[in-house]
Each structure stands twice: as structure tokens, then as C-alpha cells.
């Protein structure tokens, strides 16, 4: 047997102290018995009642002392919180799932109850209880008083994130003790996600507080792709589970109901709808499944702002193939007013008023055929990667161009006050080089201008718990967002460039199914209901009643 409140030494010392204190009180206590006499005259003279309250007289009423000492001992033992002794030395970890899967229908309340029962059942000194929401937090450390658990759980609510119990389980399984054993786990909540390396001898059990027969109605995926034909439009794909008809969900753009049509298709997880031709004007698209209050029943997606970029073209360079490409690109709007332009296309010395510029420069003016000037937001590797990948320069057959022209076709980067993209004027000479005839030429010009304009990258989707996806390579601009940016919960998140995008709780981003060792039955875990406290209190009550009846029967003073 273990004592949960204090060590055995403290228990016995307290017991001895209790008995001693009761002994002293017993000696000092005088219990009078009522008696009528003919006269108290002589007793008044002879009485020495005060001398009876001393510690040096004979000890009286030992039976009464035994009763009170036994009663006090039982209560002291009850206060020591005795529990069954565990001999194995194993560690235990109870994981309480705090994800959106626990929202609604009393699931979290049931999970809290089970967590408290498990904390009571397992060895207190070697069991900890963790809350697994967007972050992992300790609810009850090993050895802590169990009363803290209810207090700390009372303020908890399901968080707008996907379940992470699988990730936490995998991380903690590596924390082995001196004997090389991993903790044994109790997972209370949704089934843990897989996709991680786990020890084969992992010992765990699972309890799902969901009601039997509950059917999930949730958003599986929500994302967009640029429209293949219209620069200023996007196509949106919505996938839902547990929803069979378009009438069961609604969509709005910044609060205004969307009235278009959607192409329906069946998927492995449910149904999907493709919404075509949605204006890419920077609005936020909101989806809501009717009748679902939890975060799983709704999602938001920020549409890119793909309005044409206003470009001022210096008349001196607005000719030939460059002029053709500029006028044919629907994502550009040529303007004759430099003041209203976002970017300009100019020669080497043209004053662009401090605006970003695509410049045609003589070969003698710069070493590289293509030179990317940024304001210091990129390192050299990122700048070259941007130019090659995002601008489409990787589509150029640089070797062929070099052989045919006899030039060294190189790419470089530099730092300056404004963004610029400089290329040799000679590259536009059809007679010398085939650059303008390549498929890359209009792509390079268009994407370079969009980057110069500082457009935000197209974010196809943002799922809570997943890294920010890279922009689409076919029709995006800007630099790739940081790969380590990850929204932990659904809601608005700030990107590295200062803009905010809404993150959605998507079932499709929740990770693969569990691929580790199967869960064991809960009976394989030690403990079970072993609670001495009610028995101790009952026995103390019986003792108290017995003493009371003996006292009333004058068998006990």
C-alpha cells in the first residue's frame, strides 16, 4: 500500500503525535456522573476536585481512550490517501485530446471524467496527464495532488486544431527510463494520427468518448487554383464528408451569398464541388455546413487579388517583341501616366520616380545577362531560386543560347534601393539569340513585372496544423513563403510579408491513419478501482456510533 499524501515516516510520526495528544487530553478530562445525595455539606468541605486535573494521577477510562485513539487513527489514515502499491516502476502518461474533434455533444466532458478516473487508477507518483491541443501542456505532473487535475481541466475547451495525440505519443515514446522502457500511454479522444516512426513494443490504450453512431459532418478540403483562361478568376474546390447535397452547405464572399453553380463529384471521403470562375479580388470565401456548430463545419479561404498590374512603358523600349508581349498579357494594364503605374519598363537611365522597374541595359553595362535587384529581403540563393523558378528562367536553354550567341548567359543578384530586373537589350535581338522566340520570354517578362509590383503570392489553401503550401508554379508571383510558417489553429494568421490569411480546419490535413502498434485493452493496465477512503470513513463512523451507544448506556464515561 502506498500513501498518496505523505511518506510512511510522516504518517507514523503523526499517528504517535495524535495518540500522545489524546492521551494528555484524556488525563486532563474529567467526566462527571450525575448523583443526588442527601447533602453536599461534607463534600463541600472535603472536595478536592481541582486536584483531579493533573497529569500525575492515575490514568482513567482507558476504554474511552482506546475508542478515540482508534477513531483518530482511522481519520489520519484516510487523510494519508492510501493506494495500492505498484511494484513495476513503470511510468504512465494520459493524453487528453483537446482538438476540434472533442467539441460538442459532451465529448470533452466525458473525456475529462475518464482522465480523472485514470489518474486515480494509475500510480500517482509515476503518472502524468497532458493536454494535447494546438500545444502540449502538463495538466498534472507525476506526484502532484490529484485535486489539481479537476481545477486545471475546468477551464479547458476544445481548440480549433487537428488532433496531435499521435505526434505527442511518438515524441514521448522516445523518453525511456533507466531500464530502457518507454512510458505506457492512455489516449483519450479521437483516434491518434499516424505517419510517424513508433517503437514496436509501444504500450497504449485508447478511449474514444464519442457517442456511438455519431456521423461526422465536416470540411475535408478547401482550396483554389487560378483559372486557366482568366487571369482575374480562380476555381475553388470544396470537399465535404457526411454531406450529400449542395443545399446542405452555403458559401459567401465577404458576407455576400455566392450565387453560382458548382460541379459535383463523389470522392473517397464524401463529396466534392468545383466552383468555377470566382473573381480573384482579394475577398475571403466562407463555407458553412448547415447545422454544424463546431469548427469542423466551417472553413475560410482568402482569394488572391489578381487585378492587372498597371505598367508604364518608356516609349523608347516599347517596341518589337517586348511591346507585343506587354500588350498581349491580360494580367498587365498599360498606362501612359507614370504616376498611376505600379511598375515601369524602361531603359538604363530612365527616371522611374523610384518605382520598381524592368530595365533593358546594354550588354556592356552589366556582367550577367539577367540581374535581379532586391531590397535585401532575399539572400543570394533565394534570389537566384526565385529568378530561375518563379520567373521561369529555368525554361531557357541557356547552353543553346550561349552557343548560338557566343555569350555567357548568366544570372545574378544584387541589393539596391528598389526592386529591379535588368536584362541585356541584346537578348531581344532575334538575329543574335533566340530568347524572344522561346516560350519562356513572355513568362519571364510577365512574372518579373508581377514580382516588381510586389503582389502577394497565391496561397492555394491554408490548413491548421500543416505547413504553408508553396505557391503554384504555373501562375504565381512573389517569393515562396517561409516553409516553417504553420498555423496551429483555425483563424487569421500573419504571413512573413505582413499580410494575414485565414487558416481552416481541414480533415484532409489531419494526417494519415494510425500505423503503429494496435491499442491494448484497458484491462492490460494496472490498477482498477481500489479506494480505501470510503471504507475507512465507514469504519470510523461505526466506531463513533459504538462509542455513542456505550456512552448513552453509561458503559463508557
Amino acid at each position: 500500500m502506498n500513501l498518496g499524501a505523505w511518506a510512511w515516516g510522516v504518517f507514523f510520526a503523526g499517528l504517535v503525535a495524535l495518540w500522545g495528544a489524546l492521551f494528555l487530553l484524556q488525563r486532563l478530562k474529567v467526566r462527571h456522573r450525575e448523583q443526588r445525595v442527601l447533602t453536599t455539606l461534607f463534600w463541600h468541605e472535603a472536595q478536592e476536585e481541582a486536584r483531579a486535573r493533573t497529569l500525575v494521577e492515575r490514568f482513567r477510562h482507558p476504554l474511552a481512550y482506546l475508542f478515540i485513539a482508534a477513531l483518530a487513527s482511522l481519520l489520519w489514515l484516510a487523510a494519508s490517501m492510501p493506494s495500492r502499491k505498484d511494484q513495476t516502476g513503470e511510468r504512465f502518461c494520459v493524453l487528453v485530446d483537446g482538438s476540434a474533434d472533442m467539441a460538442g455533444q459532451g465529448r470533452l466532458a466525458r473525456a475529462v471524467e475518464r482522465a480523472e478516473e485514470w489518474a486515480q487508477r494509475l500510480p500517482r507518483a509515476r503518472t502524468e496527464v497532458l493536454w494535447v491541443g494546438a500545444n502540449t501542456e502538463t495538466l498534472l505532473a507525476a506526484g502532484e495532488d490529484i485535486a489539481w487535475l479537476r481545477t486545471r481541466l475546468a477551464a479547458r475547451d476544445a481548440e480549433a486544431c487537428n488532433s496531435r495525440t499521435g505526434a505527442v505519443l511518438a515524441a514521448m515514446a522516445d523518453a525511456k527510463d533507466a531500464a530502457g522502457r518507454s512510458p505506457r500511454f492512455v489516449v483519450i479522444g479521437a483516434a491518434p494520427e499516424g505517419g510517424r516512426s513508433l517503437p514496436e513494443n509501444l504500450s497504449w490504450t485508447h478511449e474514444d468518448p464519442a457517442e456511438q453512431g455519431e456521423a461526422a459532418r465536416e470540411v475535408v478540403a478547401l482550396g483554389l487554383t487560378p483559372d486557366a483562361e482568366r487571369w482575374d478568376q480562380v476555381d475553388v474546390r470544396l470537399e465535404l464528408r457526411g454531406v450529400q447535397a449542395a443545399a446542405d452547405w452555403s458559401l459567401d464572399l465577404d458576407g455576400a451569398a455566392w450565387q453560382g453553380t458548382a460541379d459535383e463529384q463523389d470522392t473517397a471521403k464524401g463529396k466534392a464541388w468545383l466552383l468555377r470562375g470566382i473573381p480573384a479580388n482579394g475577398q475571403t470565401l466562407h463555407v458553412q455546413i448547415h447545422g454544424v456548430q463546431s469548427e469542423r463545419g466551417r472553413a475560410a479561404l482568402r482569394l488572391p487579388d489578381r487585378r492587372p498590374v498597371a505598367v508604364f512603358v518608356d516609349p523608347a523600349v516599347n517596341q518589337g517583341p517586348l511591346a507585343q508581349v506587354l500588350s498581349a498579357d491580360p494580367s498587365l494594364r498599360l498606362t501612359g501616366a507614370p504616376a498611376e503605374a505600379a511598375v515601369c519598363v524602361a531603359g538604363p537611365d530612365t527616371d522611374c520616380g523610384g518605382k520598381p522597374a524592368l530595365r533593358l541595359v546594354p550588354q556592356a553595362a552589366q556582367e550577367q545577362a539577367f540581374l535581379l535587384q532586391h531590397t535585401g529581403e532575399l539572400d543570394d540563393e533565394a534570389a537566384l531560386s526565385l529568378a530561375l523558378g518563379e520567373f521561369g528562367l529555368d525554361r531557357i536553354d541557356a547552353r543553346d543560347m550561349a552557343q548560338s550567341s557566343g555569350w555567357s548567359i548568366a544570372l545574378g543578384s544584387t541589393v539596391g534601393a528598389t526592386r529591379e530586373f535588368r536584362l541585356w537589350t541584346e537578348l531581344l535581338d532575334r538575329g543574335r539569340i533566340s530568347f524572344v522566340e522561346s516560350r519562356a520570354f513572355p513568362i519571364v517578362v510577365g512574372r518579373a513585372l508581377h514580382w516588381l509590383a510586389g503582389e502577394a503570392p497565391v496561397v492555394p489553401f491554408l490548413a491548421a496544423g500543416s505547413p504553408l503550401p508553396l505557391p503554384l508554379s504555373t501562375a504565381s508571383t512573389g517569393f515562396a513563403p517561409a516553409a516553417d510558417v504553420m498555423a496551429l489553429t483555425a483563424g487569421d494568421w500573419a504571413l512573413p510579408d505582413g499580410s494575414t490569411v485565414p487558416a481552416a480546419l481541414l480533415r484532409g490535413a489531419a494526417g494519415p491513419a494510425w500505423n503503429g502498434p494496435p491499442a491494448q485493452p484497458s484491462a492490460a493496465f494496472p490498477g482498477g478501482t481500489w479506494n480505501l477512503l470510503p471504507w475507512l470513513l465507514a469504519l470510523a463512523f461505526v466506531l463513533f456510533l459504538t462509542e455513542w451507544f456505550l456512552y448513552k448506556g453509561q458503559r463508557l464515561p
Partner: protein
Amino acid sequence: MRTSDRHPERELQGDLRLTDCESGAVENVSLTPAVLDRYRAAYDRFQEGLAAVASRRHAGLLALDVEKPVVPQLAQLFEQGRYSV
């Protein structure tokens, strides 16, 4: 009087709250040997006092045991001229 008056330990033991049946006065008493000795001393002093009062007035003092029949005790007095309790 009663013969047990001088030996209350035959009826009384332990810690008592004695109530005078006439005056209602209360005395808390723990019957220890010392207390009993003091009680008997007080009782003897009272009896001696009664005898002294009777002697001064040239009167007799008759002590009757109220727990025994009175007539035989009186008969003994009349027959023998004295009665001892």
C-alpha cells in the same frame, strides 16, 4: 442518619457531580482516598458538634438509622437506656 453516610464509597465511585436533594447545591467530586478521608473527617466533626450541643444543654442525642425499622431501635433505647447506631 444512615450507616452508609460515613462510608459513601460503598455507593459512590469515580468522578461525580453531586446534587443536594434539598438545596440543589452542586459539588463536583472525584472520589479519591484522600477525598474520602477528608469527607469522613468532616462528617466526624459534624457528629461531634451535635453531641457537644446536646451535652451543653444536658440533653440526650439519639441517632436513628433510617434504613432500619425505627420501633426496634426505640425499644432498645427504652429497654437498655441507650442505643448505639
